């Protein structure tokens, strides 16, 4: 696949404050790329620079191999679904969706046909004449998507588009958006701070923090092989424990030796990342290397989530073994499920 967007050494500062470091990122044609990061890390700023609403302090963006930043927003073949929708309050649904084509002075019949197609796509047939104020949040969201897609942009930017919707609707829209992206063959650059959303929708996830890209990879890569404690912490509810390594393939966690499959990094002190579902527990505590007291248990339908206190450290454990608070359990982790990260 060819790169549709290449971001090169993109830097942005507001006054003396650096908002984006030196961002380098290639985005492929037809890719569903998600930029994931905590609030305030610069996701919106990055999207706004791509859309043209913000200027870059330095660096460059290529769009289909050509310079993008020299064009004003209205001349970029990129459309945006805004976080707050930014629908036109004085126009009805149909007029909102047709806006881009009317600007282009497109033929009336073609406009009608395409609007109908878009209404079908986002399931809003029959809502043509509704004023946007009379729509629910979910329906407004759909209008915003249809309005941005009617121009058949090469790239669609979506800034936390589902943030204002309730959980059930959000899940439905996630699936619909993913299907739309596949069937239309458009590159989606999707911004969110919700790791679950990122994991379920994306071909590629870019994890950002403080204006820097920390890791780029598939959902599996990011989830299974986080490169830093921050990514591990942000992507899942992992256990991040302090550990020490004396040599390769051996790590001391809370003073107890575990085998692992990672080599020793250049420092002795490391972060050990263990996902809750990878922790094994046993009621026969003395059989396992570590033991601790169960202090909390919650049933999650298929598994129990429990907090186990080992000396002064809390472990989060997902297991089908039922325990009760106060119980003493043994803890073990098999070597391939221990992830070592340098501090």
């Amino acid at each position: 696949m060819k790169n549709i967007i290449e971001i090169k050494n993109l830097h942005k500062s507001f006054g003396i404050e650096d908002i984006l470091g030196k961002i380098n990122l290639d985005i492929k044609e037809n890719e569903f790329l998600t930029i994931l990061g905590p609030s305030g890390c610069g996701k919106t700023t990055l999207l706004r620079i791509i859309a043209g609403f913000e200027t870059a302090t330095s660096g460059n963006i290529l769009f289909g191999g050509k310079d993008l930043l020299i064009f004003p927003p209205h001349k970029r073949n990129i459309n945006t679904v805004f976080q707050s929708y930014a629908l036109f309050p004085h126009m009805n649904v149909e007029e909102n969706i047709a806006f881009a084509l009317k600007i282009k002075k497109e033929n009336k019949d073609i406009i009608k046909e395409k609007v109908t197609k878009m209404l079908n796509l986002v399931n809003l047939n029959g809502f043509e004449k509704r004023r946007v104020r009379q729509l629910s949040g979910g329906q407004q969201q759909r209008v915003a998507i249809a309005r941005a897609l009617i121009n058949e942009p090469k790239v669609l930017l979506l800034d936390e588009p589902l943030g204002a919707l309730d959980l059930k609707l959000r899940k439905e829209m996630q699936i619909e958006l993913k299907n739309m992206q596949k069937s239309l063959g458009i590159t989606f650059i999707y911004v969110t701070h919700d790791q679950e959303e990122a994991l379920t929708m994306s071909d590629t996830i870019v994890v950002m923090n403080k204006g820097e890209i920390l890791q780029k990879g598939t959902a599996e890569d990011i989830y299974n092989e986080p490169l830093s404690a921050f990514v591990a912490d942000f992507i899942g509810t992992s256990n991040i424990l302090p550990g020490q390594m004396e040599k390769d393939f051996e790590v001391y966690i809370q003073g107890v030796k575990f085998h692992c499959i990672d080599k020793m990094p250049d420092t002795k002190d490391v972060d050990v990342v263990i996902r809750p579902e990878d922790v094994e527990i046993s009621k026969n505590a003395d059989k396992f290397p570590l033991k601790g007291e169960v202090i909390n248990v919650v049933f999650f339908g298929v598994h129990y989530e429990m907090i186990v206190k080992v000396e002064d450290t809390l472990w989060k454990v997902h297991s089908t073994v039922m325990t009760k608070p106060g119980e003493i359990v043994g803890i073990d982790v098999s070597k391939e499920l221990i992830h070592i990260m340098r501090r």
Partner: protein
Amino acid sequence: MKSTKLAIPYIIWIFIFTIVPVFLLINYAFSTNTGSFTIDNFSRFFSPLYIGILMRSFYMAFWSTIICFIIAYPVAYILSTKEFKNRNVLILLFIVPMWMNFLVRTYAWLFILGNNGVLNIFLGFLGFPQIRLLFTDAAVLIGLVYTFLPFMIFPIYSSLSKIDYKIVEGAQDLGANSFYVMLKIIFPLSLPGIASGLTMVFMPAVATFLVSNILGGGGYMLIGNLIEQQFMIVGNRHFGSAISLILLALILVFNMLISTLIREEETN
């Protein structure tokens, strides 16, 4: 219950200062000196002389409203743009004259527009011939525009500054250049402000008598002058009341016209 009690002072206020005067006007307009019922006061108005004065008033008010709008819209727009740094200075520039006494402000124009006034001195200085402005329609028009301009600027400014900038970005994102953004987004969304600006200028302009008195000269007659004359000079408050009622009715019609026009524009 509580809110009805709180409303009592306002009801009294409206009663004393709005309803009572209107009833007095109606009472005078439909009666003769001796107090008997008549419609002569109204039929008297429908003569070429008075209709001419009425037409002229509407003509002057119409043009001063149009000119106010043409000046006010760009000013309000510049004031409302977020890049504009000296907003407060400019707003003050328009507000300070409003603190000055209305008469003083209007008399100042006498000195500017007069045959030996500032404007003509300046023109002479540049080698242009003098122009006679004072006591003409043009002078009255200038006075009206100057007096009522803030009433056009502020409602438009307030509706422009309420427009969410995200909506403008949304339009640009979909391919609209600045011209289309203006035409399809900003202008339509400022229509409520335009509507109140138009009525807030037109209504007092059509009823004015002071501006026309000072800048139009003694013989200059607008409908406001006619009413004033009937009450203060001729002493015929019956005819004066009838003209007032006719003017009131016309203003109401104008008002309704503007608001339905705007509402139609907004919905299509």
